[in-house]
């Protein structure tokens, strides 16, 4: 297992090495030590490898990830797994703002809480937050699912498109065009699969409420001007 100590190795070398991994590589499991809050750790990977980051990371950890499974044993700064395409990113601590922003695929799991704008402009990513999320989470969320086992802050799902939101706790307020929707068996099954993929067990899917778009703002109309 390659081990990279970021206290001794420049970040640029680490990311370049991760980018060089080819389909036939045997280096499929990496350990990264002493990230010490550095930004852009393990970004742009496009290989089915496992990367364990032992410590706290700064902005954009695992940004634009494809295929890889990145586990952070610590907290993550702004934009963890931003624009992720596929694979999985698992943060065992808390995450800052814009977690999973614009993600187009894959799964982001946060064991702790997520700050504001979690899942902003998400485009297909699935996000499971075991704690709570801050205000304006799922702002302009286009596709994918956001699951929150705790509470959600103000303006959840503001200007949401087709993303699905599942919240078990309290929602402080819903944003423009975001409404509560019926939780059907189909949605319960989908939620159960997401929770399972995130390693969450023993949770009653019936305790969640589902939110999504009322689709009233899909075409500009002057009568909706008060909503904008």
């Amino acid at each position, binding site marked *: 297992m390659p081990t990279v100590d970021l206290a001794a190795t420049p970040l640029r070398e680490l990311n370049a090495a991760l980018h060089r991994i080819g389909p036939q590589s045997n280096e499929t499991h990496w350990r990264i030590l002493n990230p010490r809050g550095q930004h852009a750790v393990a970004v742009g990977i496009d290989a089915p490898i496992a990367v364990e980051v032992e410590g706290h990371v700064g*902005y954009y950890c695992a940004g634009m990830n494809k295929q890889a499974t990145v586990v952070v044993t610590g907290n993550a700064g702004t934009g963890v797994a931003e*624009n992720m395409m596929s694979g999985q990113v698992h943060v065992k601590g808390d995450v800052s703002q814009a977690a999973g922003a614009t993600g187009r695929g894959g799964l982001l799991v946060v064991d702790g809480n997520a700050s504001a704008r979690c899942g902003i402009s998400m485009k297909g990513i699935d996000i499971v937050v075991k704690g709570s999320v801050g205000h304006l989470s799922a702002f302009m969320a286009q596709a994918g699912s956001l699951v929150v086992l705790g509470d959600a802050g103000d303006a959840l799902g503001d200007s949401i498109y087709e993303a699905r939101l599942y919240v078990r706790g309290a929602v402080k307020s819903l944003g423009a065009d975001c409404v509560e929707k019926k939780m059907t068996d189909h949605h319960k099954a989908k939620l159960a699969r997401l929770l399972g993929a995130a390693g969450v067990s023993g949770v009653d899917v019936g305790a969640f409420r589902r939110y999504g778009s009322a689709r009233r703002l899909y075409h500009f109309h002057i009568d909706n001007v008060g909503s904008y």
Partner: protein
Amino acid sequence: MDTADRWIHTPPRRSATFDEHAIAEIRRAAATGLYDIRGFGAKRRLPHFDDLLFLGASISRYPLEGYREKCATEVTIGARFAKKPITLKIPVTIAGMSFGSLSAQAKEALGRGASAVGTSTTTGDGGMTAEEREHSSILVYQVLPSRYGMNPDDLRKADAIEIVVGQGAKPGGGGMLLGQKISARVAAMRDLPEGIDQRSACRHPDWTGPDDMEIKIHELREITDWEKPIYVKVGASRPYYDTALAVKAGADAVVLDGMQGGTAATQDVFIEHVGIPTLAAIRPAAQALQDLGQHRKVQLIVSGGIRNGADVAKCLALGADAVSIGTAALIALGDNDPHLEAEYRKLGTTAGAYDDWHEGRDPAGITTQDPALARRLDPVLAGRKLANYLSVLTLETQTIARACGKSHVHNLEPEDLVALTMEAAAMARVPLAGTDWIPGQAGRRS
């Protein structure tokens, strides 16, 4: 009418304040309850490059021989940090315009035309199409607030990356691609349903200020192994500080778009009333680069109302390294062509004034996703026309540069210019013609 009646009523007099356009807008707003959304850029009269003149060579300046002596035009962008800077053969590039706002044929034509003369094209909101990558020898990939179509594969396929903070038509504004232009392909590229209005955000989703932008640039460099030049594009409003902050954040180039810069769809009130003219933006931006010791190291690319080689030369003389064209490129492809007058009339407009680019009914097949209309544009022929136009821009720029004695177009300088109006003199920081007076400057030019 006898003499007495003649003086009862004065002749009809139209108001300069409530002019024909203002009255029509009030009537239209009252009838519809909607503000006007349109394409194109600012249409009002503004201080512009026409208000500047070059001082050709004279006894104290030595000109270069036209058609004989070399006047170089190449521009290298990205040498500050990128492992693979790009070199353009001419100082004119094609601005970012999306597939979605433009047809696939138009994007292909832009690529063909630009590549033929050795310059770059730029993607736009909505991601990179295979056609534009195939036909653009140098392609700049935009990272926009919406991140529609954003993916790391395209990032790596690009020759340069442009982080779009704003554009001249609407600094501080996002965009809206109306549902009628959202075809199945456009929708799929943007991860949204077909046929609905698509909002392009005004802010980036994962950073909020200049310090964050620095980290974002760092991330993009790490993802692309520090190969690609990274530009930062801003709409002209506070060009000195925006340029300085972009440099501080680690940009290789700054793209500065004045308020005449075009748009696919923006509120008319935004286009005409937010931002500053291109003419007024260049000197402050160049000054910021000079103050930071980065002039000609961090490249300044200026856009917004560039029409001819004189405009190009004036931008370069004021401190730009290159210019970028959008509206002019579309006109070169065939937009607003008089031979389509009958069809423009049916749309309630006329050739030269057509600006409802957001509606997708462009008879020229450029600003549309209607397959039948789009097929009207022959990308090979349109690309050839664009290449011709770009060549003319370059020849005109060289003509002026040689007349000023410059062996490279970058050797043009403010000292080569004078202004026809006090406004232009103040904005461009060059003397009023025939004087040594620069309004707003503490001292006179020696």
